[in-house]
């Protein structure tokens, strides 16, 4: 048997305990194949348990194990890094628990935080010299690790309660979909929910809108004074949260973004 044929048989044995593949590997190999099968599945279950601790706490040990086994049976690992194995687990949970959408949303938050933890480092802009900028032309660059999650349930509140070891609330749909903003401040992963106005502002700035154009957009909606106050508050929090990595007032602004952007 060629090495490629042998490795395909081992793969088929690990993925689905293929008896014909095991027979081709050899009659005396059964005890060893059992060890490799156990190692394979144990490691993947442990990986999911480690990555989705709050999800596991929310749905309980048995239901989590059932979901993990279902995932392992249907989504074989493909990346060199185990860190990637959980990437499709929220989707598996969404399929298995369509009537309980908060489960997949909690898992999605955990996955996003895990990605954030090892995201590329970036240096936030300091406060010095900000007064000298031409803010009308300024284009803000946000940290590449920033992520936005769409939430239809109170999954974020449940996740927060689980983190704080408090009694989580009962799951429920939100009246209006929410958005969680995730970013890293130094080595600290941060998360907070934002309203649609701040989401739209972030999306427009991230696609190249100037700060001045954003101010005018918001002023049209809320009036000059209220608009400026709100944009100023957003800018203050983005800067103090270390989300902004560059401000350039010398570049040509990008083409105007569409008036309402989707996540």
């Amino acid at each position, binding site marked *: 048997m*060629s*090495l*490629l044929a*042998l*490795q*395909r048989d*081992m*793969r088929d044995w*690990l*993925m689905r305990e293929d008896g014909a593949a095991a027979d081709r*590997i*050899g009659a*005396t*190999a059964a*005890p*060893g*194949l*059992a*060890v*490799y099968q156990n*190692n*394979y599945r144990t*490691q*993947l279950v442990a*990986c999911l348990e480690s990555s989705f601790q709050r999800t596991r706490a929310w749905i309980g040990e048995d239901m989590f194990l059932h979901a993990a086994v279902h995932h392992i049976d249907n989504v*074989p*690992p*493909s*990346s*060199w*890094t*185990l*860190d990637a*194995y959980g990437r499709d687990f929220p989707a598996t949970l969404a399929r298995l628990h369509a009537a309980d959408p908060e489960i997949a949303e909690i898992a999605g938050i955990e996955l996003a935080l895990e990605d*954030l*933890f*090892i*995201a*590329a*480092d970036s240096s936030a802009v300091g406060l010095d010299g900000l007064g000298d900028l031409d803010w009308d032309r300024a284009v803000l660059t946000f940290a590449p690790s920033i992520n936005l999650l769409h939430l239809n349930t109170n999954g974020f509140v449940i996740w927060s309660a689980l983190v704080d070891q408090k009694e989580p609330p009962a799951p429920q749909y939100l009246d209006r979909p929410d958005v969680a903003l995730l970013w*890293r401040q130094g*080595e600290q992963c941060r998360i907070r929910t934002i309203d649609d106005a701040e989401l739209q502002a972030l999306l427009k700035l991230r696609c190249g809108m100037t700060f001045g154009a954003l101010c005018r957009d918001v002023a049209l909606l809320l009036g000059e004074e209220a608009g400026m106050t709100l944009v100023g508050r957003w800018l203050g929090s983005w800067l103090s949260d270390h989300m902004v990595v560059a401000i350039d007032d010398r570049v040509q602004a990008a083409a105007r973004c569409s008036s309402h952007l989707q996540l």
Partner: protein
Amino acid sequence: MIPSFPGFGLGLRKPHYADFLDHRIAVDFLEVISENFMIDGGRPRRILRDIRARYPVALHGVSMSIGSADGLDQAYLIRLRALVDDIEPLFVSDHLSWSRIEEFSSHDLLPLPYTQEAFDIVSANIDRAQNALGRAMLIENPSTYIDFAPADMTEWQFIDALCARTGCGLLLDVNNVFVSASNHGFDPIAYLNAVPHDRVRQIHLAGHSQGDHLLIDTHDRTVPPSVWQLYAHVLPKLGPVATMIERDDAIPPLLDLLTELGTARRIAAGKLEEAA
């Protein structure tokens, strides 16, 4: 030839990060799992840089899959090269095994048949990896639970030929020799006598468990007397060589591991003095 480093070290594991960063611990080097740090950034990478500023570091991989019949993963090699350039490690090692085939990655160290075809594939993969990394690697003998027959050569003949063909060095895991010898019924002393002694640059010492039918390489307990005996046997043939305790599960307090490392130091001192 890869330079020798005659020191005593430990595998760096999460529960001991603070110990190694906050104190000057009496080890000559630390070994880390490469894949844990082949990431874009964040705290793990910063901790590794801080560790590297205090201790020599060896990079030990588990996912290169040098036995894959369909070759190596280029993205993996690029990331490992970036880590190597950043950390400037003592050694870069991985296992004589495979884990990935055609978009499937088992995340386990799967055994190879010791055939001429496998030898040619592994040799080509090691050549490619060493070119990509810009340096020679160490290849570790695995613990295995399947013995593919018929084979064209023994594991030690396979390793000897690999070192000669590719210029790689050997990371000799003494526990793996014991486990595989027990599982497949060969003489561990014959194995240790036959490996290319001049190519050994690092030794792993670890513990194992008894499974239903086979010994399992669990790395979750102290080094047993049987493994210490093999270490004492092979050491005079090697001379001073980087030696470490490898513990991956049921991680004890650091003091326990340092005590075990002290045993390795005492055995090495005695055996090397006898041999002198």
